[in-house]
Every structure is written in structure tokens, then in C-alpha cells.
């Protein structure tokens, strides 16, 4: 390239950069429409895409259904927009910043679907007045609404999950006392997500006298041969899998290759979906996982989704994937956010609500069995009742088992032992409050 060409190139580059900056800088003006904006942090690419895609499809489809069937939430139209995070914390934060002021009232509620992003957004949400729903992930100590005013780990936390798994294997052994001297291995994703259950498991291991073997797996989780060699050497009685994305299927394949009995292997609820077991197929038979909100299957709401969304050609994914585990979980997550808005509408009126108002709704969420039936989610979830002191609202889960083709729920409902979990929540939340100079709210004064 000669000098003249380079100069032209330079001028063009400068022009482009200037144009780009001006576009980025301009804040689009929104008309005061009767709309409620739901940002969606999704990941449809990268190592976590196999699990991120169905969740995002379920989430979007439920919102589309409400617009198509009911015309939004009590007459307030729902708008939403996806932003790709790639499961990366930095990109997730950028997505959050990009979308937090969209729509007439800003972002209604953010659901990052990543524990790492949740950690990063937790200090930002109170400043921006946007509630965070982290259904089944995120900070376990954020159950304490007096410190974590804006976090809502609706329906389950990792401490519940770990406790319920311990309860289940205890029951299998014939009582929790029988766990004494047993060995449980935790194979976990080496990130805040995977590390979250460790304090609870350590406490349980001290209480019940079982050995805990911690085996971290580095992102993205395709390299696990040393992990499984250690399992072969240590021969733990049970393996708990705390994986996500491609790590799950790799772990199950490795377990098969190592000859570890899969009926002694239990995944958390993020390690128990179709993409996790399908690559191993028949070999993954007898593998178990937790299920808290929404097991696989189709109910009344799915019929509506097929009728109002897919029949019109608006589906986000493939028709046959409707009703998968993660699809359903995405739907339920969207539903809980919408129910929070509905609850807040009762107090603030049927208009687009701000984050502060929706936060109030989420803190006073009350979805009982009749509501669940009315919404078309019968058998998919337990009732949820939140309060200032309990931002979680339900503390239960079931066990599902893979039969080589489908997931089946194979246990009754377990409730986590709050006498064990509460003290750690209190201690952890107090530590967070002290470090970040937060004065906890007095929950007895909240209405």
C-alpha cells in the first residue's frame, strides 16, 4: 500500500470511528409507551451454548406467549431484547449497562443465568434500582433480603441443593447417620458457581461425619481425565456433579469410561438436562440429577405456547424441543418475573412499573397451588412465598433419573434443612454487609 492509499485509509478509519462513537453516544429517546421492558442476558455461543440456548428459548417464548395470548401483563405490553454474554462476566456487565435504561421504565428485572455475572451485578443493582432474579443460582446468602435487598434467588439456592442431595443419599443409605465414614466427591466447575455449595457440604460433613473430596474442573471443562482418575483411586460412595455446559456431558462420558456406577452420581439442577446426557445416550442410564423448578414434560402452558407462538411461526427454537428441562426452567423463570410484576401492579396500578416497584412485587410474591394450576404449570413447581427475610420463597427439590431416552422424576419432594442453612446464610450475609458497608434493613418493619 502506498502513502496515498494509506492516507485515504487513515481518513476512512477516522471517519468510521467518529461515526461509531457518535452512534454509540446517542441515547435513543423513548416515547412513553405502555410497555414493560425485560432484558435478557443469554448465551447462544461458546462452551455453554448447549445449555444456554434452551433456557433462552423458554424465556423468550413465555414472554411472546403473554403478548400473543393476553396482550401483555394486564394490558401492559411486554418488550424484550436479547444480549449475548457468552457466559463471560465482563460481557455480562456490559450487556447489563447497555439495557438497564431501555424501555419506558428501564429494565424490569435482570436474570443473568450465571453465578459469576450475579456476583458482579450484586453491588450494581441497588445503585441502579433493578432487581436481580437468580432462580436456582447466584449467591446462596442472598436469601437474606435484609442485606441483599435487590437479589431474589427464587425457588432454590446451591445450599438447598447440596443439602437435599445429602438428604437423598442419606435416605438411600437408610438414614443420615449411616453416612458416617462414607466418602462423597464434589466434581465442580471452578468458578463462583461451582464453589458455592462447598461451605454447606463442609458443614454437613462435619455434622454427619462423611468425607468430602473436592475436585475442581477448570473452565470450560473438557479436560477431566485426572479428576476421574482420582475418583477411580479414591472410590467415593457418591459423586455430586456441579457442572455446566460442555463440562456436564464430558463428566458423564468420563464416568462411563472410568466404570463409575452412574446410579451413585448426582448432578445439581444445572447438570440434569437433555444436552448433558444425550451425548452419552444409553450409557448415561441411571444418572440422577436434582430438579427444582420445572422438570421435563409438557403441560397446559406448553399447549398454549405451541398454539400461540409456534403455530404462528414465532418460536425461538425447534418445536420438538419445547418441554425440555432447561426450556421449561427458562419459562418458569420468566413466569416468576412476570408474576412479580403482576403482584406489584396490584399495589401500583396497571402501568409500566419501575425496578423499585417490581422489587416490592417480588418481595411479596405469593404463588400458591391454585395460581400454579391457573397459569398452566401444574406439577412443574412448588408454591413460592417470599418475604423480606426470605427472598427465596421455596426450599424444595426432587430427584430425576435418566432412563437412556428421557428424564423421569423418581423421588418425592425434599425440603432443605433450614436449621442447618439459616445460620450460614446469616453469617455470610453479615460478613458481606460488613465488608461492603451495608446497613441491613429491619425486616419486622417491612410491609
Amino acid at each position: 500500500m502506498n502513502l496515498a492509499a494509506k492516507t485515504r485509509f487513515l481518513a476512512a478509519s477516522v471517519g468510521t470511528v467518529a461515526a461509531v462513537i457518535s452512534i454509540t453516544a446517542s441515547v435513543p429517546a423513548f416515547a412513553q409507551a405502555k410497555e414493560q421492558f425485560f432484558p435478557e442476558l443469554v448465551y447462544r455461543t461458546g462452551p455453554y451454548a448447549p445449555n444456554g440456548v434452551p433456557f433462552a428459548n423458554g424465556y423468550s417464548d413465555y414472554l411472546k406467549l403473554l403478548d400473543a395470548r393476553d396482550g401483555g401483563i394486564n394490558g401492559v405490553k411486554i418488550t424484550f431484547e436479547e444480549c449475548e454474554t457468552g457466559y463471560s462476566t465482563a460481557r455480562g456487565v456490559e450487556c447489563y449497562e447497555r439495557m438497564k435504561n431501555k424501555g419506558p421504565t428501564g429494565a424490569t428485572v435482570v436474570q443473568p443465568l450465571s453465578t459469576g455475572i450475579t456476583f458482579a451485578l450484586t453491588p450494581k443493582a441497588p445503585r441502579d434500582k433493578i432487581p436481580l432474579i437468580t432462580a436456582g443460582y447466584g449467591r446462596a446468602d442472598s436469601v437474606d433480603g435484609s442485606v441483599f435487598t435487590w437479589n431474589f434467588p427464587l425457588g432454590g439456592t446451591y445450599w438447598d441443593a447440596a443439602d437435599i442431595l445429602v438428604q437423598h443419599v442419606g435416605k438411600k443409605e437408610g438414614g443420615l447417620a449411616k453416612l458416617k465414614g462414607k466418602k462423597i466427591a464434589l466434581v465442580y466447575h471452578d468458578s463462583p458457581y461451582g464453589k458455592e455449595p462447598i461451605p454447606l457440604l463442609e458443614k454437613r460433613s462435619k455434622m454427619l461425619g462423611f468425607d468430602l473430596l473436592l475436585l475442581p474442573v477448570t473452565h470450560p471443562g473438557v479436560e477431566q481425565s485426572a479428576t476421574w482418575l482420582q475418583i477411580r483411586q479414591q472410590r467415593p460412595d457418591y459423586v455430586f456433579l456441579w457442572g455446566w455446559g460442555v463440562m456436564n456431558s464430558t463428566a458423564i462420558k468420563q464416568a462411563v469410561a472410568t466404570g463409575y456406577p452412574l446410579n451413585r452420581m448426582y448432578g445439581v439442577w444445572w447438570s440434569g438436562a437433555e444436552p448433558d446426557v444425550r451425548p452419552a445416550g444409553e450409557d448415561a442410564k441411571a444418572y440422577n440429577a436434582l430438579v427444582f423448578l420445572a422438570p421435563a414434560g409438557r403441560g397446559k402452558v406448553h399447549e398454549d405456547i405451541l398454539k400461540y407462538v409456534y403455530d404462528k411461526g414465532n418460536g425461538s427454537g425447534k418445536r420438538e424441543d419445547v418441554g425440555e428441562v432447561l426450556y421449561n426452567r427458562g419459562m418458569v423463570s420468566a413466569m416468576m418475573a412476570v408474576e412479580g410484576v403482576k403482584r406489584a401492579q396490584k399495589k401500583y396500578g396497571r402501568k409500566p412499573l419501575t425496578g423499585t416497584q417490581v422489587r416490592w412485587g417480588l418481595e411479596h410474591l405469593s404463588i400458591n397451588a391454585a395460581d400454579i394450576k391457573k397459569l398452566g404449570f401444574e406439577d412443574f413447581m412448588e408454591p413460592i412465598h417470599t418475604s423480606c427475610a426470605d427472598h427465596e420463597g421455596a426450599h424444595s427439590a426432587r430427584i430425576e433419573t435418566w432412563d437412556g431416552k428421557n428424564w423421569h422424576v423418581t423421588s418425592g419432594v425434599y425440603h432443605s434443612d433450614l436449621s442447618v442453612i439459616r445460620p450460614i446464610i446469616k453469617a455470610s450475609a453479615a460478613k458481606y454487609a460488613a465488608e461492603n458497608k451495608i446497613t441491613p434493613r429491619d425486616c419486622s418493619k417491612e410491609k
Partner: protein
Amino acid sequence: MFYRENGQFKQTYRQDEALLPIAQDRIVMLALLVFAFVGVPFLASNYLFLSILNPFLIMALAAIGLNLLVGYCGQISIGHAAFMSVGAYAAYNLMLRVPNLSFLVALVLAGLIAALVGMLFGIPSLRIKGLYLTVATLAAQFFIDWMFARVKWFTGYQSSGSVSTPVLDLFGWQLDSPVKKYLFLLAVVTVFTLLARNLVRGHVGRAWMAIRDMDVAAEVIGIRPVYAKLTAFAVSSFYVGVAGALWGFVYLGSWEPLAFNINMSLDLLFMIIIGGMGSILGSYFGALFIVALPIVLDRVPAWVGAPLSTAMASHLASMIFGTLIVFFLIVEPHGLARLWAIGKEKLRLWPFPH
């Protein structure tokens, strides 16, 4: 026509040694600084601060740090994100464990700690060079990543391994809004840029460049390679450590060891190669390019109204990013800073090129 230096005579040594010897440059630079400090805070939106300007400033600082090592001293490193994390965790631990410590003090101390660690991993450079050195720095990257993820003390025994920081308080000035953060970062980065600019034209910088251009010859004329290389590693890691502490405290606020992984190291290298090796200005260009490009690419489909799915848009962005990098390397291997210099050269003759 407007940009020419004839008529400006240097009459004293001071004038000859000025940072910007040409009057127009001084005016432009001053105007730019005034604009950055006074104009931008009124013009830019919060989103622009949080997502582009603030990370851009911090990354520019890190890129300057890496450029001092790679561009000026010729020692390649693919492990500088690790030194950033050293800075970030050092600042975190200082703030956590030393009561009433000012963040500015913690920032400098964090930089010094990072400098020490950088020097430690720079020792192999005394024996090996070129691309071989990448392995030594990769070892630093993976070892330090691992260390912060595993040794519980560093993360204050947080069970999640993720640390969070309170709102910064600088002598009663709460750093709680994007604009304040921007101004603070801008001040820090301006100071460090000036320092770097002076450092590279002083005897230290000249020693580095001599080592880069030909180590044997440099040794012959009396430059000690040990001293030059280790100072380069130390200063570079200091800059990067400060940038890491800023990245953690001012930009992220809460982070995990993954925040400073190998991809960040590669991004830093991209910045200085696309911006221009051995150029402070280039570090800014490169940082802006790498920080803004993915965001811009991500948003282009929405602006032009193309009905692309999120996944497709993201894949396209990745492809375009890769293509642009190759394109820039081919068009101008010396980086955007070289294009800038060519532009200036042209401007001096314009509009009568002959």
C-alpha cells in the same frame, strides 16, 4: 497549511527537549485534555462511561505498561493479565487488612507488588528471548491464575472465590457515579502517561530500545542487559498492576480469578500490536479498538435493523473481529500509530504536496 513547524526555532536546550516541540501539537494536546476533563463529562452518557470510556482508560494504561516491555524493550509477554490480577488482589488485600488505608496508597503499593512479581517472572528473560519467552510468561499466567483461585488467604476466605469491593472513598470524595470514576481514571492515566512518555525518552528508555534493537551491541556500548530487562519487567508490571487494581476496584467492583485470564493477556497483546509497538499513543488507539470493536460489532445488526438471531450476530462479530485483526496486521504491521504518523506527515505538506 496549518500544521507546520517552520518559524518555530528552538533557542534553548529546554525547548529542544520539550515533550511536544511543535506549537500546534501542544495546542491540540491541551485542547484534547481540556475536552477530556471538561467536555466529555457533559456530553457522554452513563452507558458510554461505564462500558467504553472507563474500560478504555484502564486498558490504555495496561497497554502502555505492556508496550514498555514488548514495544520498547522487545521482550514478549503473554502473561500480563496475570500481573494485572496481582495488582488487583494486592490492592484488595491491602484495603481489607490495613485499616484506613487510602486507595491511592493501596494503588501504588499494589503496583509495586506487581512489579516485584513481574521481575521474578522476568528472570528467565536473562537467558532466553523472543518467542521462547512466551512460555515463561504463560507459566506466570497459568500459575498466578491458579494461585488466586486456590490459596484462600488471597480472597479473604470467601467461599465463592469471588471478591467484592465497597464504593471507593478518596479523601471524602465518594467514587460512586460513572462520571466521577471517569475523572479519577482520566487523572491517573494522564499522570502515568506523562511518566511513561518521559521514561522512554530518558536513559532508561534508551537502554531498553538498545536492548530491543540489538542486545549484543547494547552490551558492547555499556548497557547492562540484566538491569535493562529487569527494569523493563518491573516498570511494565507496575503499570499493569495499577491498571489491574483499577480494573478490579473501579470498573468491575467484584471479580473472580477468571476475570484476568489468558484471553485478557491476548487482548492486551492485540492492543499494542494493532495500536503500534513502541508507541504510547498507539497504546491508546489499540485499547480503544479492542474495547470498543466487540461492542460495536455486537450492536451493528440492531442499528441497521438486520433481523439476525443473537447467536448469528455473535458469530459474525467473532468472524469480523478475526478478519479485521488480520486485515490491520496486513495493511499496517506497525499499527495505527504509524498511520497516525503518516497522516501527520501528510498534513505538514498539505495542500501542496510537491
